[in-house]
């Protein structure tokens, strides 16, 4: 887990250790402090840590919503059109399907369809509760669906510093931004800059570890087994370059290409199902633009095209594990 704490951004100024979830809450707190137009909305949002926000900002900035995901998402979009800057917490990423009509048909399209008259500065938080026997209706990783929608930005930070810096960038962006956070990352601790203007730019990948033999792009929660696998391989002298895209749309293909030019081998690890996922898109672009740099076919390790099972016995090996990743790296060598 040590490697997750590495940052490519030069550390300027003070930082403190905190968990991913605390860093996320701090980002929201600071942005609400900075801009009074920012407000939070979601189901049961005034509890689970939201109580601190209510205490500081009052109930007019933290709104509990009825169980109407589709329409309260639209409410957020309407409020954004009218000058507010909402953060819509959709609780569990599987619920984003209920909200998808409003996100896709309204939030993503209205700026374009009105010839730029309307800005929609809004952030949608989608927490991915993939493991722990949640069963298939609470365990989705739906980001690939939204990658196919023009007009949306999508981030998937994996370190405490990145969630803080990217969440703050999302709030300030001025366009609809979806945030996919893997709950497996919530307890991770890391150094987080205290500067209230610390931002991580949307669209920039982070090289988590430099290497020379294989390029490994790890998406969202897949970073955890990836780092375990890479640490084990490193003990054998196998040098893997690990890239965390941090932003899924727009993807930072330049950084991927530069790494592939060095290693000639590419592995993509992610927890989404294998058909039309992030790895599919990266593979396509690398095949189009970096084919001559590749020494071996691109490999993907991801969840199978099967629903997330309930039983721990079935769920245990469902998502890419340390051993799956080690085996895939070996295949590329």
């Amino acid at each position, binding site marked *: 887990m040590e490697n997750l704490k590495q940052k490519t951004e030069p550390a300027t100024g003070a930082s403190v250790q905190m968990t991913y979830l605390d860093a996320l809450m701090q980002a929201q707190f600071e942005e609400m402090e900075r801009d009074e137009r920012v407000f939070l909305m979601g189901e049961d949002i005034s509890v689970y840590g939201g109580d601190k926000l209510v205490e500081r900002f009052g109930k007019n900035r933290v709104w509990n919503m009825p169980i109407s995901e589709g329409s309260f998402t*639209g409410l957020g979009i309407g409020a954004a059109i009218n000058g507010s800057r909402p953060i819509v917490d959709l609780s569990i990423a599987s619920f984003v399907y209920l909200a998808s*009509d409003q996100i896709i048909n309204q939030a993503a399209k*209205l700026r374009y369809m009105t010839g730029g008259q309307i800005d929609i500065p809004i952030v949608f938080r989608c927490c991915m509760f993939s493991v722990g026997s949640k069963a298939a209706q609470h365990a989705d990783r739906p980001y690939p669906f939204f990658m196919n929608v023009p007009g949306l930005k999508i981030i998937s930070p994996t370190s405490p510093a990145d969630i803080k810096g990217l969440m703050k960038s999302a709030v300030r962006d001025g366009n609809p931004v979806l945030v996919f956070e893997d709950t497996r990352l919530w307890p991770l601790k890391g150094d987080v800059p205290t500067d209230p203007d610390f931002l991580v730019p949307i669209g920039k990948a982070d090289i988590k570890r430099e290497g020379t033999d294989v390029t490994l792009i790890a998406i969202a929660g897949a970073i955890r087994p990836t780092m375990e696998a890479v640490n084990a391989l490193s003990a054998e002298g196998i040098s893997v370059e690990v890239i965390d895209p941090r932003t899924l749309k727009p993807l930072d293909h330049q950084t991927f290409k530069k790494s592939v030019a060095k290693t000639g081998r590419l592995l993509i690890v992610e927890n989404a199902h294998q058909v039309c996922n992030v790895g599919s898109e990266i593979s396509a672009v690398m095949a189009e633009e970096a084919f001559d740099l590749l020494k071996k076919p691109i490999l993907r390790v991801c969840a199978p095209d099967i629903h997330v099972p309930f039983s721990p016995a079935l769920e245990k090996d469902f998502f890419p594990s340390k051993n799956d990743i080690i085996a895939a790296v070996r295949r590329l060598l």
Partner: protein
Amino acid sequence: MRQSKAGRIPGSFHASIGQEAAIVGACLALSDKDAMTGTHRSHGHPIGKGAHLDALMAELMGKEGGICKGRGGSMHLADKSVGIISESAIVGGGLPLAIGCAFSAKIRDIDQVTLCFFGDGAVNQGTFHESLNMASLWKLPVIFLCENNGYAISTSVAQSHGQPDIALRAGGYGMPGVTVDGQDVVAVFGAAAEAVRRARAGEGPTLIVANTYRFDEHNFGLVIPGQPYRPVEEVEAYKRDRDPIKLYRTHLLAEGLSEQQLADIEAEVTAAIKQAVQFALESPMPKPETLSDYMFNSPLVGHNSFAAGLERN
């Protein structure tokens, strides 16, 4: 319609002819700073809210001079400068946006009412129920104006509504529901003005059902084969006896306006429309290299830049 027949209006064109009183009566109750959302049939609505005819007509023709730069078209006539925040062609899609607009005004303590137009078809969408609930719960300054023209394309209210008296549904959400003669502009204005008063006073939303009639097909030129879904006599009777413009004309004459005064107004309107058509015809088409304009509030860089996309395609 003449322009549509001449092939100058691309796509589907959903005329609101026959529904003018419901539209104008409601819009007149608002002030300039108030907001409005519309539907795929909201052609007259932006006019009622004060958008400029020239830019609206140019938008219908997909021109660069269109109100949405030719990116929206006839079903999406937004004009932020006069508070028209959007028109949704997803039936029922505008209701959440309208309550959100009103929500934002409320939490920022701004005196602004949002008028939300939708049709009888949208009443059967989940967004109608969810939005009415939230508007009532938080007493949002919003007016739900249902233009009940009796038919969702070919499906009548009787065929699709368990409770065909749409205004009764308001009771389920703790707000007043009123039904008005949607062909009577004075009646619609009266109901809307009371709803605006309530909204400004912090008393919350109102559902107004304006019973009206669509004189033309669902969209211009549409031919639905087989048995007609509405009797020809019904359509003829509405056009003959219930045309809101004719009715109001009669009303104004009775009020003491002269034929000459009305003729002058009509000539003025005709001239404005001619001018708008002329403007639209002369406005250039958007240039192909502007395809990606207006996607985001600032250009993206790198592989996902618009330029990269254009090159690849």
